């Protein structure tokens, strides 16, 4: 093979691999991404049961109920709307009423979010960016320190 033929072979193989990667990436980016929603969004949009979403807001004061065997139920609010969430497991160390939280999971038929992930970030001063913006939108933002 000449230098040119070899180069063409290489380009063809590389092109194939890149095309395959591109196709797979495009498929995965339409199918495997999760949207972030605030409680108001959820109330407005009513996502279908089974759709995975990320829900962020504040843990509503007085809403945390601990059942047996590490079952927890609480509500996430942005001051305008609240969404009930159920979770089984150990909550993060910084999970507290009135604190910012991001949960991920799917809605069941009753409209409760069955969360498999609950994130409260590691720093007390830290507020998840999505939550901060959602709070600003709903008018519940109280300056640069997260509401206590």
């Amino acid at each position, binding site marked *: *093979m000449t*230098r040119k033929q*070899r180069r063409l*072979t*290489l380009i063809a*193989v*590389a092109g194939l*691999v*890149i095309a395959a*990667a591109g196709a*797979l*990436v495009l498929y*995965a*980016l339409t199918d*495997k*991404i*999760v*949207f*972030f929603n605030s409680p108001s969004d959820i109330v407005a949009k009513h996502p279908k049961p089974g759709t995975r979403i*990320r829900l962020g807001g504040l843990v509503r004061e007085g809403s945390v109920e*601990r059942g*047996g*065997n*590490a079952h927890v139920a609480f509500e996430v609010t942005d001051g305008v709307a609240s969404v009930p969430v159920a979770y*089984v*497991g*150990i*909550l993060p*160390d*910084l999970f507290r009423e009135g604190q910012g939280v991001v949960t*991920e999971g799917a809605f069941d038929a009753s409209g409760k979010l069955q969360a498999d992930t609950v994130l409260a*970030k*590691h*720093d*007390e001063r830290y507020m*998840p*960016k*999505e939550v901060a913006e959602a709070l600003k939108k709903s008018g519940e933002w109280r300056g640069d320190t997260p509401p206590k």
Partner: protein
Amino acid sequence: MIVEIGHFALVLAFALALVQSVLPVWGARSGDARLMATAGPSALGQFLFVAITAAALIHAHVVSDFSVVNVVENSHSLKPLLYKITGVWGNHEGSMLLWVAILALFGGLVAFFGGNLPASLKANVLAVQAWIASAFYLFILSTSNPFARISPAPIEGNDLNPVLQDIGLAIHPPLLYLGYVGFSIAFSFAVAALLDGRIDAAWARWVRPWSLAAWICLTLGIAMGSYWAYYTLGWGGWWFWDPVENASFMPWLAGTALLHSAIVMEKRDALKIWTILLAILTFSLSLLGTFLVRSGVLTSVHAFATDPARGVFILAILVLFIGGSLTLFAWRAPGLKPGGLFAPISREGALVFNNLFLTVGCAIVLVGTLYPLVYEMATGAKITVGPPYFNLVFGAFIAVLLAAVPFGPMLAWKRGDLLGAAERLWFAFALAAIVTIAIWWPSTGALLTALGIGLAVWVMAGAVVEWAMRIRLLRAPLGESLSRAWGLPGATWGMTLAHFGIGMAVLGIVSESSWNEERILAMKPGEVVTIGDYQVALDGMIPRKGENYAEEAAHLSIRRGGALVTYLEPSRRMFATRRMATSQTGIATFGFSQLYIALGETDKTGASAVRLYWKPLVTLIWLGPLIMALGGLASLLDRRRRIGAPVPARKPVSKGGGPKDSGPPAPAAPMAAE
């Protein structure tokens, strides 16, 4: 006073870097040896001044000088000494200082060990290092001064984030930065070669040890970070495809590709232009990682603070260096002499295949990491791209690459024999097939698991078979085999170990993700729960006090078949200063597997939430990279590549000028197999 000396030393380092940015290049262009010679001493001077700066900041932290804002915000007088020291880089300003300190260290090392470099190459390399350094000194001095004072000084500090009060902080960031920043050397060499308009096999010989050293540190740094997250976060995860993890993983992928393409360049004088591009891309990804982490555009546990001014500054550095170097590349690369020819089926071809898949894999990670940013800008909606995307797309591509790994070393340079290679690999293939079927047959459902384990066995067995062939194991008397093994070059050992290590890591990953057992429950003292082959009994809760925290520990006894094996004491720690709780997990290692227990809150009935995991072969996930790094070290210590050692190739490096003839491909040192 000491604080001011530190600040002043940083300004001096900046001034020195500015001088070093200009004079050596000028000298290289005009052929003025005296100007070129300024590069070495000023690089050493920079390192000296930055070391003074770092020492001053560490001193301020150790003596708890609360007139310094950085100390107030991140330290506490009661904090243990170790965390007073490591807390220096557990914040934005300090971690940027660590960044430039390591940059200065590498610059100093090149100046010190670079005696055998051609003068103009050395001058250019150190000048490019100084460009990078100047940008980051300016960044620190203008937006992130760690020496800012506060008046009146508070009596007590805010303490370091308790999550960071761990031995992990002492190891993970320095190693990671040694890796990240270490690739700046490869970058500087690439830019210097482009400035010079000349590149040859000797260039690769100089670049490889530096890239290898950076790669070793990055490998260990990533693995250490993963293990730290695993034992500290309390839910057993070890990799989250978090943007910041991706930011360190991308340079690793590109750096791995660079190590492989540099082999082709060194041995066969081919792939020169591609190697230059990879060197530029690898460090560009390091810069991108620094930007992603430090600017706070992506929220993450690692984002200490978000300040738009800092983000814009680093973005400017990013654009300047990536844009500038790629423009230089586009302008100068076409003028470089193309390298040697090779058939598609050959060692070179295999290494090109490796590079293709590693760079595509890197691009896949890049797209997934940046997509949420792009999507939000385009539509306003916020999305997360998480494990489902990365596991599917990256997993698929890397699996193809792994399947090809055993073939590479079996192929000869220039023209290989794929069928012959396959024949020699029959044993590895048979072993992998048997393992796959043995796992798949009893429970015909876990096909992916079976294939994954089979793949791992294939890669590991492939590495062993190749090694056994080299030393003629079982074909020659054992004594001869042993002496052959002893005589194998370090680089060969390195390759075998690295390939075996990646197989180990895959084995651990597949095993942990498929056979992980998890139990979450509320336990009262006296209760027993079974997980894996073990019975775990909660004996009781013990309150304890540490230096700056109070903790509630669970005393658990672990039994197997009724016999007591060990005790575990996971706990929850409460840090008073920041009013934060952290969990300390209890982990018991059995062989390569681990029993992992995290403690949650105790409710009113006296039952404590407990999370138990049985993780089969989980430690291989980190032992694999450890073996890979060991391989890197073996290769680095290879006598033929030792920095400063005379090059044993048949073509001696001519003094001062470097090999001017890039004519015949460097014969270099032959691989032992040939």
